[in-house]
């Protein structure tokens, strides 16, 4: 069954949607949308380095994202520039460095479109294994640190005062975010991964009233987006990544309709 490229895409995509659901909720609760975007931009540098030194792409992207996250923490201590300025600085300079380095590696043919928007239809069995095993690890860690992370998300001081050690868990969360970007870069692409993190979580918020519910509904909406998006792209011959995001957007719009009007 997994011989079929379409089935492989579906299995990998659903795996990604299951990971981005809970992480996406945390991203919007913590107002980190632009941070996710910055990590995704820096992923291009990660991919370039992976090609240059023939490393595993997911590994290289993860390392670069983690370095960027640490750099951001460091910059925040050194300057009083606002967070969004620092993120913009990091996002675009790493993107630029990635593109410049790419120029030096002229012997290697880059699929720029694939990098930016992903190519879920080219998913291999190894990619599926990576997504599901990696996803399992990420969700496992998330499960164990949920209480501390969640309380720190609601109020840092409160969590800190009551012994939840928020600084450690914030750091782990950042690494998990880097991890999910590394896992999904090949399939969704650097420009669209933030969409898959944020849109299902945002749609879910419109129709739920407690945190756990919001997480589970976000996962469901993610899975729906991936499934419908992939079928649509097959039917209409559109690119798969953008199709998934468009479906997520449509689900978001539906979530805005008040309950009594939804037939």
């Amino acid at each position, binding site marked *: 069954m997994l011989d079929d490229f379409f089935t492989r895409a579906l299995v990998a995509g659903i795996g990604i949607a299951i990971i981005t659901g809970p992480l996406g909720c945390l991203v919007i609760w913590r107002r980190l949308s632009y941070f996710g975007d910055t990590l995704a931009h820096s992923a291009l540098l990660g991919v370039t380095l992976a090609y240059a030194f023939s490393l595993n792409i997911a590994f290289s992207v993860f390392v670069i994202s983690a370095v960027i996250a640490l750099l951001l923490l460091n910059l925040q201590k050194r300057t009083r520039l606002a967070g969004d300025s620092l993120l913009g600085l990091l996002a675009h300079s790493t993107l630029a460095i990635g593109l410049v380095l790419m120029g030096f590696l002229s012997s290697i043919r880059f699929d720029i479109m694939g990098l930016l928007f992903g190519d879920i239809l080219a998913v291999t069995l190894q990619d599926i294994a990576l997504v599901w095993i990696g996803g399992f690890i990420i969700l496992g860690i998330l499960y164990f640190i949920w209480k501390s992370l969640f*309380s720190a998300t609601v109020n840092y001081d409160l969590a800190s005062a009551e012994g939840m050690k928020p600084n450690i868990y914030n750091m782990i969360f950042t690494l998990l975010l880097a991890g999910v970007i590394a896992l999904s870069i090949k399939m969704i692409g650097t420009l669209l991964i933030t969409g898959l993190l944020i849109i299902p979580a945002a749609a879910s918020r419109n129709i739920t009233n407690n945190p756990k519910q919001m997480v589970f509904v976000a996962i469901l909406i993610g899975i729906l987006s991936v499934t419908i998006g992939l079928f649509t792209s097959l039917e209409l011959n559109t690119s798969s990544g953008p199709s998934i995001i468009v479906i997520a957007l449509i689900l978001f719009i539906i979530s805005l309709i008040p309950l009594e009007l939804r037939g």
Partner: protein
Amino acid sequence: MSKNNLLVSLENAGIYKSPKWLIRGVSLEVKSGQIVTLIGPNGSGKTTTAKMVLNILEPDEGSLKRYTNKIAYVPQKINIDWTMPLRVVDFMRLTNNLSNNEIIESLNQTGVEKLFKEQIHGLSGGEFQRVLLARAIAKKPELLVLDEPVQGVDFNGEIDLYNIIKNISANLNCGILLVSHDLHFVMTATDHVVCLNGHICCSGKPSSVIKDKAYIELFGEHRSKTLTYYQHDHDHTHASDGSVSS
């Protein structure tokens, strides 16, 4: 736990935030069963001192010693974004695993058990303060730090909440560090008063602080003297929702 166990102590502690010291030279102790209050004008370092005691801020000089980990905190201000769907019951479980019964019991103590399933965002300021206090009590802490716990609460509610605070200290035998503007409560119901203005102006038992020159200077002759018992006679009582109960 027996009475008068030392729970926490600050030794000559201070916080520096460029370009000045927010607070300096603070020494204080909180023991079990004791209510210690911090008073002082705005910007005098009350919240900063409370945060040092809680180890949210690490002192830049001096030291903090803590002898308990069972700590609950009612912060001065909490903003919970609409993006986070949160019911009162979820909020009660924030740092602790509590059964529904334990939660209802605590909410009952502060008179808001009806709000159990309500969204946090829909609460009024006073209701939210009551939920915050209930959450802190539910933890059955040994040390409770309250940063202006009655702000936004109506007058009778204020009296209710202060009574609850007195009861907690007696029933749970926990030590309380309270930041308050309510000089009447501070002077009548607490064991030790620390008067701050960037440093400790004076401290001691309420009866001695009230006569201290530094205190009178800080709060003004008029206010510090006319602050006598204000008796509010009611021929009926109100439930927390405002209805007259008898």
